[in-house]
């Protein structure tokens, strides 16, 4: 799983998806597509965004929650601990 984090983050559209989920967690595919188009000028197709979400899911950064007939995407920053655990930032150094 750790290897997938870096691949998942190595794309501007996927980082924008994480930014938008950080602002409002639990979005439909349509809402994410709209935000990417209107706020980031990213004219990705729905299929492309769906594939980006698959990559983020494989990395554990996005989880999908089905609620009735809806499908919502949620942010999970848990896997990012791997990064600071490996290369601690100065202000969070080991005690």
């Amino acid at each position, binding site marked *: 799983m750790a290897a997938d984090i870096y691949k998942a983050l190595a794309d501007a559209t996927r980082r924008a998806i994480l930014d938008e989920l950080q602002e409002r967690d639990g979005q439909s595919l*349509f809402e994410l597509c709209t935000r990417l188009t209107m706020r980031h000028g990213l004219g990705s197709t729905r299929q492309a965004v769906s594939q980006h979400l698959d990559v983020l899911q494989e990395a554990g950064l996005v989880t999908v929650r089905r609620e009735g007939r*809806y499908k919502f995407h949620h942010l999970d920053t848990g896997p990012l601990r791997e990064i600071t655990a490996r290369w601690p930032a100065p202000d969070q150094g080991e005690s």
Partner: protein
Amino acid sequence: MIHLTVTSVFVDDQSKALDFYTGLLGFVPKNDIPLGGDDRWLTVVSPAAPDGVELLLEPSSHPAVGPYKAALVEDGIPAASFGVDDLAAEYERLTALGVRFVQPPTDMGPVIVATLDDTCGNLIQLAQHQG
């Protein structure tokens, strides 16, 4: 010249849809004409434009409609989009009446949008144009 006169959404239950679209959203009934079986030619209009575009609340009985609607709802895609003058106020009003929003008012630049569930198998977008 060609005119836009009728647009439609497929609704699971026409009577329930009439209640939702008139009683909650605020449209007014226009035409209600019996068709075959229990189906009706059922349209509503905006009170601001009684002779304007009619919204047809169309029966969902065709077998293709169910999978079509389910796929749209799963991905959060609205079946229709309606304009409002004050989306924040509409959101407050409808939420208080128990309407479920899957997306609260969100600023998308030229437009603020929100998405609600019409309880008849569709997501509906409300849009307020800015500027």
